[in-house]
């Protein structure tokens, strides 16, 4: 009893509750007993080193004793099985069900109606959920499509601006292009404005043009060209 009171106080119960429990009949009740544990060591623990090479002696029963033990055990199994079967038949609810086909059909129909009710209820619930889900999915898809259209338009605008810029630049550059119309004038200009590259250059970019950078005589010029 002291143990019991101690365990109750550990649960922080009020003194009234403890007093109430103390009036209970504490006769033998298997349900209140602690769970029985096996006394074996765990499966993964190996055989003790001192017992590895121990050879247990095989029990050798006399034949009559073995027969007697077998007979008693067979009787015990037989008796217990018979009692178990009797109690099962007596208390099992399966055997209480009527074997009248009309009654079975009636029960079946009642059960079917119940099942239908449950099924309809489920279907209604599922329908509401399904419609809400489909509406939500449609809205999401519409938003996504609008977003995609906007993105596409923005991309097209960017592309148009890029091409416009490219065309403008080309047009600007095309002013200095050589065309069949102005080719003669440009050749004349090039011939007139002869460029002389015979000069030295300082690291800082200063050009030093010599006094005589070109051959004076025409023949020498021809020979030098060959």
């Amino acid at each position, binding site marked *: 009893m002291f143990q019991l009171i101690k365990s109750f106080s550990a649960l922080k119960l009020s003194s009234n509750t403890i007093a109430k429990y103390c009036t209970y009949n504490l006769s033998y009740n298997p349900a209140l007993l602690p769970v029985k544990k096996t006394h074996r060591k765990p499966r993964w623990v190996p055989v003790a080193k001192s017992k590895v*090479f121990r*050879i*247990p002696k*095989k029990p050798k029963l006399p034949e*009559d*004793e073995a*027969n*007697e033990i077998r*007979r*008693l055990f067979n*009787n015990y199994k*037989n*008796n217990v*099985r*018979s*009692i*178990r*079967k*009797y109690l099962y038949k007596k208390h099992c609810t399966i055997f209480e069900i009527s074997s009248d086909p009309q009654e079975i059909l009636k029960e079946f129909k009642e059960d079917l109606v119940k099942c239908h009710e449950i099924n309809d209820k489920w279907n209604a619930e599922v329908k509401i959920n399904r419609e809400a889900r489909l509406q939500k999915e449609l809205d999401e898809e519409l938003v996504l499509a609008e977003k995609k259209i906007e993105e596409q338009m923005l991309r097209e605008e960017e592309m148009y601006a890029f091409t416009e810029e490219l065309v403008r630049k080309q047009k600007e550059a095309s002013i200095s292009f050589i065309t069949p119309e102005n080719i003669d004038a440009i050749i004349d200009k090039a011939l007139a404005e002869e460029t002389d590259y015979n000069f030295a250059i300082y690291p800082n970019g200063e050009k030093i043009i010599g006094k005589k950078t070109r051959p004076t005589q025409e023949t020498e010029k021809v020979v030098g060209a060959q």
Partner: protein
Amino acid sequence: MPYKYIGRTHDFRGKSLWEILGNLKNFGVGRIVARNILERYPEPSYIKILKVETLPHPENESPDNQRKIRVLVEQTFRGKTSPVPVLMERISYKPDFKLIPKDEEANYCKKIESVKDTRILPRTMEFPPLLKYLVAQDILNNKGKVTNEDFQLEIAYNKRSRNVKYKIAGEGEKPTETFSMGLGKPVTLRFYKGIKLNN
């Protein structure tokens, strides 16, 4: 150096199947081999070699890891010969086989008529005392009168087993044996000295 065995012993006596058949002409086809462990039965149990197929040595051959052999045999167990040949491989390593010499074959394989089980077992038995009292109370509360038949507990025999040899008493048939909740009829009386037996 002779082997020194360490560890638990087994009940085998004899040689493995390869040790016997490997040393015989034509791998012993047609010969009779018996297992020592099956000599516990009064009826003869033996195998007749029909066809032999050898298998390689195991990697680490030892007394614990013997060579196997694949043998097609005509098997006779407790005097009954199997109508179809049996392929033996998994048990061929067991050192429990012995060769029956040719002149002893006829004697060894002689049929012995097994004793027929003539027992007729009872269909019902009595209840254990406390359960009997409870049953009586139950019937008295419901019907108001208890008959002798109410105290008969039906015995749960294994009716589906193929090895059933006994017979269960039918209607009006007198059983040769009786079962009760007590110690029953002892086979060996020397354990019951000074004990009062009801049956």
